[in-house]
């Protein structure tokens, strides 16, 4: 029951690896099958964004324990181009690649906590958590 997994993201296959790592850690920490799928789906979205927009980066999934509350934390981190307008990027349907634009706002809905930091030219960090119910 190790508490942390790091998946380097640089190819499409790594998206699958990352979401499977997240699902396994969630299963080990008592998340329901439903929540395992929600977490895996959120990871898939942010991992794909790394491949598409930043080419490479990493996903770190870890167990968290905040004042007795058990959960899982997902950090998606890259040194890509960054996001110019975070408010826009979090809006349903907004996409600079004419894709669905549901990745970031959707991941936010799938998880309990969601935060994003980005600096143009320096990269993006998405931090998400979900708590065991």
């Amino acid at each position: 029951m190790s508490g942390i997994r790091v998946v380097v993201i640089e190819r499409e296959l790594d998206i699958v690896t990352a979401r499977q790592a997240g699902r396994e850690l969630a299963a080990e920490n008592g998340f329901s099958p439903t929540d395992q799928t929600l977490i895996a789906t959120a990871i898939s979205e942010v991992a794909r964004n790394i491949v598409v927009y930043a080419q490479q980066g990493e996903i770190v999934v870890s167990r968290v324990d905040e004042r007795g509350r058990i959960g899982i934390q997902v950090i998606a981190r890259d040194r890509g181009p960054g996001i110019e307008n975070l408010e826009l990027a979090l809006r349903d349907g907004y996409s600079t690649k004419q894709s669905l634009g549901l990745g970031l706002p959707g991941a936010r809905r799938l998880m309990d906590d969601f935060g994003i930091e980005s600096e143009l030219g320096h990269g993006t960090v998405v931090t998400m958590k979900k708590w065991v119910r």
Partner: protein
Amino acid sequence: MPVPILKQGDTLIATIVAALTDRELVEFRDQLAERIGAVRARGVVIDVTALDVLDSFATRTLRTIAQIAKLRGASAVIVGIQPTIALAMVQLGLTLDDVHTALDLETGLELLRRPR
């Protein structure tokens, strides 16, 4: 891993047997479009039971496949979306409103047998 596409009468049955990368999904899309012509298919069932996740890219590709099939004269039905995956899709904001869906292969084939 390529997606096997079987022919049964005038229907194609494609069974996704494992988590697919984006590229594999796109290759499957293009192969299916070809096969519809090669076997003169009138219907296509795509079984996604084994998929671990249907994220926004996969859902968009499935919708594209259904639309391509339609333009090639075949009805497409997506079958086997599992309960937890359905929930994740809805929370993401994905609904497949415009695509035929059925519980499993059997009901999908039934749906295609009805007069179109």
